[in-house]
């Protein structure tokens, strides 16, 4: 664990989370959520939790984003917030 690395990723994480929740286009929002997923995966690899990082990379960043996109394409892309 390297503290400065840790702090930088954590700050990026907050930024990614806030942006993905505030973009009005849901498809971009889902993509930024994917970025958030990979950032947090990086964070866990850095914190020594390799198995969690692996799972997050496949499940959290991969499949979750795909599921979001599948739903968004089947419903409506624009949102009011």
């Amino acid at each position, binding site marked *: *664990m390297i503290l400065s690395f840790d702090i930088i990723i954590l700050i990026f994480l907050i930024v990614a989370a806030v942006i993905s929740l505030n973009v009005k286009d849901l498809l971009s929002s889902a993509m930024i959520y994917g970025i958030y997923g990979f950032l947090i995966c990086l964070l866990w690899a850095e914190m020594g939790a*390799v*198995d969690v*990082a*692996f*799972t997050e990379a*496949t*499940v959290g960043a*991969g*499949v979750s984003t*795909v*599921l979001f996109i*599948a*739903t968004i*394409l*089947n419903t409506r892309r624009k949102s009011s917030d």
Partner: protein
Amino acid sequence: MNPKIFASIAVVITGLVLLYGVSDFPTFGDPRSPANSGVEGGAPSTSLYYINESYSATKVPNLVTSVLADYRSYDTMFETVVVFAAGMAIFAILRCVGKDDGAVVAPQRKSSIDGDHNRIIVGMTCRLAVPVVQIFALYVIAHGHYSPGGGFQGGVMLGASFILIALAGNLEDALSRLSERSYMALAALGILIYAGFGVLPQVLGKNFLDYGALQKILLTDGPEMARSHSMLGVEIGVALTVMSIMFAIFANLSSRGTLKGGL
């Protein structure tokens, strides 16, 4: 009440409660914290036990795998059941929506990764990538004892390879490789394998999921290797369930439960 005001109040109160708890935490990264080494003056924590003893008891160097699939295998079994239950809930919600919904489905695209000329680049890349992804997924499942990985990760990757086929071509392509009937069967089979590894020791007179009792069936040198091998079996069961349910969730979501057309 305006939801934003309500949300702000709820968030501030929850945040303050959480920070009140944080104020009392041990320093981040402290190896002497109660979670890492036990309460002061008490018995050492279970994590120390795992680090010190689990290798000799299970012969699995990856502590996460040995704890996940042996010491806390009951948790893991129900985690697989959660995935299975989620799959069943999604089918219950989306599947069998009736014939009148056929009109909603997008017209079926002609493109397919099998002999399609419109999407040749995507199709070829997918053809090349899918076997590699699947081989790597199998490696991840099988090598989970020695390196990061295991049933969940490998299973999700296997499922993702089918999702890739569905995304690059169309859903029929993927469903022709893993049909509805087979993914239902594989999902149930995965948990059956897992629970089977639990029930066999019961038949032999030991407790549920006591892999050590399988020594005679698996013909290993001692209970340690029996545990190690059973963990592999269990991981394969997990991988089967996770693979089929992940793909099935995508297939149902992308086609609104009709399993036709896809995205």
